[in-house]
């Protein structure tokens, strides 16, 4: 087993996997089950001022692919609907029972200095390792001036972060909403406010489906629905990009990242770490499969590291950042062509029709006789777009092979057409 221990904003963690602030971390029972399963930490479900919120019945919608696999979940659940005192008592108890595990207290409050500070102090006093500011929920709480209503205003991001920093001496994580135009703006605001780390992404504002019988968006609450927060595998690409943007921004170098967004497997985890994440938070995958998924997340990550010769997470943390560049820095003279392995080709024609109808007419059907056919790439027409390889159902049947065209690297700023 490779060494998966790490330090996130100064907090030591036995592995990088924490459960995000969400239904799985709502109470002591769930959290203890997670710790028994091997999770290194939890961000407790967001706490607010008393009286607690009231949640509605029917809370999740789903976006499935055609194979009935869940691509994403949308939720309209609000923050913890249990009293602050009960939550804090449970946190204290779990902290005592599980000294090697991390508990972060997540919080939100209306824009009021006293409210933020009093709540932050109470939570800190329960013994949590850090506090996460929930500035992201895009449903319900934002209508009350909290969640994304704060996260979408950089000045308020900075302000709330600063308020909490002023009253607690534990690490502060500012959780960012993706429902903005440029993630760097709230990330910079969090840094100015003194955040030790940013957590991202919170859920994406969404309607996952419309029930065509009820003629209402799902999930349906008494014939009506509302927009909710989208999470799960489908949002991973959005999260990866936002994490990468922050990791490579010169102005906020050193800001630690607790990455969230569609992390379901060890590979997802490794990708976020390669883009600079210090730690990881998971929610949807656990909701879909249970806490046991931690087993392969740790074992798979460990195996990957062993194969690559990485002893610790730091050995590959951020390794993909330097290769993540602006489009203008790409080599326009690089050339790659599709190559179809005729031995493994099953003659389904998917590559042909994709290329013929929607790309560059570069895949020619040949008649092998006896009802059989073969597919050949016309290199003169192939632009190396990858579409055929992406639609091919046979693993490694279509390979994209770089070709040497003898031309030197050339970027758009250097291109004759741009000079």
């Amino acid at each position, binding site marked *: 087993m490779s060494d998966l221990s790490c330090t996130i904003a100064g907090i030591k963690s036995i592995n990088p996997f924490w459960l995000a602030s969400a239904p799985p971390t709502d109470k002591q029972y769930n959290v203890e089950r997670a710790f028994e399963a091997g999770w290194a930490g939890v961000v407790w479900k967001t706490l607010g001022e008393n009286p607690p919120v009231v949640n509605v019945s029917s809370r999740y919608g789903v976006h499935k692919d*055609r*194979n*009935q696999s869940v691509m994403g979940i949308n939720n309209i659940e609000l923050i913890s609907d249990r009293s602050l005192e009960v939550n804090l008592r449970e946190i204290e108890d779990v902290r005592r029972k599980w000294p090697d595990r991390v508990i972060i207290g997540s919080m939100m409050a209306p824009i009021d200095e006293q409210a933020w500070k009093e709540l932050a102090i109470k939570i800190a006093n329960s013994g949590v390792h850090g506090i996460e500011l929930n500035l992201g929920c895009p449903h319900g709480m934002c209508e009350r001036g909290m969640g994304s209503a704060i996260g979408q205003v950089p000045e308020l991001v900075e302000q709330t972060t600063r308020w909490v920093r002023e009253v607690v001496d534990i690490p502060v994580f500012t959780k960012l909403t993706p429902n903005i135009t440029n993630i760097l703006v709230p990330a910079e605001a969090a840094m100015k406010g003194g955040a030790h780390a940013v957590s991202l992404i919170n859920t994406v504002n969404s309607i996952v489906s419309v029930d065509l019988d009820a003629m209402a968006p799902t999930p349906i609450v008494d014939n009506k629905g509302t927009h909710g927060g989208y999470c799960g595998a489908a949002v991973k690409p959005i999260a990866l990009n936002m994490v990468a943007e922050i990791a490579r921004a010169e102005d906020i170098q050193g800001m630690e990242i607790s990455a969230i967004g569609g992390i379901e497997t060890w590979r997802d985890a490794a990708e976020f770490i390669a883009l600079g994440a210090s730690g990881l938070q998971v929610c949807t995958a656990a909701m879909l499969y249970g806490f046991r998924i931690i087993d392969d997340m740790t074992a798979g990550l460990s195996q990957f590291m062993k194969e690559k010769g990485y002893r610790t997470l730091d050995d590959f943390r951020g390794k993909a950042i330097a290769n993540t560049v602006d489009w203008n820095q790409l080599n326009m003279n690089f050339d790659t062509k599709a190559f179809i392995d005729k031995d*493994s*080709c*099953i*003659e*389904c*024609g*998917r590559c*042909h*029709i994709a290329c013929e109808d929607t790309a560059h007419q570069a895949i020619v*059907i040949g008649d092998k006789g006896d*009802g059989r056919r073969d597919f050949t790439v016309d290199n003169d027409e192939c632009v190396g777009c990858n579409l055929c390889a992406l639609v091919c*159902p*046979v693993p490694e049947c279509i390979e994209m092979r770089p070709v040497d065209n003898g031309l030197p690297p050339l970027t758009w700023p250097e291109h004759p057409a741009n000079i």
Partner: protein
Amino acid sequence: MVEKPAYPANGCTLSAAQIETNFSDLHKPLSATQAISAADSCIYCYDAPCINACPTSIDIPTFIHQIKTANITGSAETILAANIMGGTCARACPTEVLCEQACVRNHTGEEPVQIGALQRYAVDHLMAKDAPHPFSRAKDSGKHIAIIGAGPAGLSCAHRAAMLGHDVTIFEAKAKPGGLNEYGLAAYKMADNYAQREVEFLLDIGGITLEYGQALGQQVSLKDLQTRFDAVFIGVGLGDANTLNLPGNTLPGVENAITFIENLRQSEDKSELSIGSNVVVIGGGNTAIDAAIQAKRLGAKHVTLAYRRGEAQMSATDWEVDLARSNGVNIELWASPAALNGSAALESISFDSMIIEGGAYKKKGEIFTLPADQVLVAIGQTLSTSELQGLNIEKGKVVVNSRAETSLKGVFAGGDCIASGEDLTVQAVEDGKQAAHAIDQYLSANSETRA
């Protein structure tokens, strides 16, 4: 998934309930979950090989895609637009040598997509709905077509002709429509009176009249139909069953497999059918297999299927042969019937052992005998030509051109009575459909109406 049938044990016979179970659906229909899972394995090939392998050219990737998108009624309409008897074909087609053999999944050593089972899922879904018939008729052409034979070819031709705006009268010799779907396919492939349910569904298009007890050469004549109708379609199938030309072939206990299956299909209570203890089926085609398995499932203690050549030469598909073996049928190869023995009734059957030498089949010079109180003969059917005077007939089949036209003007033919390919329901459906289009073109070219 083949259901485990019950067989007689310890000298006991099967109960009526066991026999009923033995003749229920050979394959259970797919559940919604199974259908989704099966549909997911379809790659949605472009210009798919399975379409080309289907005699009726059903757009298989599209209908499976429609199952995936939960448009199951639309899926059934895709199937039925190409093959109005898609429900029977889903049950009875030898998919293992047609669409499923062509599935590209076979190239990677995977199981092919369960096209037949998915087709049944979609068509059953549509037929279970109390919905209007999915196809509508074109404007009345004023033309009237006579169809001889209410089998798959005739019914398919009738449905398509009705769609194209023509009126149709079908003349059927028997008391029920459906042809071999009703009388010839194995009972466990067509459970729950499916053949009749399908005919009812098909007739819902309107414009089709069925007259029963109308045999060609007896109640109706070709000449008469030619004068009374604007066009005639012949879909009479192969009416004569070949017999064993051997001593003893009239002994009680010697029966044609076609008659055996027909009686079995028409029986209200299969437990009342008599079945031998030692049944020997002669033949190597799917009819022989169907007869052997059904004899076993009726409660015969020993069933032997005897074929004069090797397994590779059998016209039954490998899947069917395996099904026979798994049903406890003993398969005796290289056995050519030599004599049917018995005094008052059949007692045994003797065979010449056969060998192949230098490409020629020869008697080995050894005779062996099997006890038999029932022999079912399944050595092919032939066209009954006596009522088809005036038609050009070659090699026992009615000769048609590429437009399904016989040698008589305005007379078309299709199905097993022509040489269009394998004698399969699906081919008959295609023949009937294509003939309807040919008749439609013929009628519009000869637009002057009948005097």
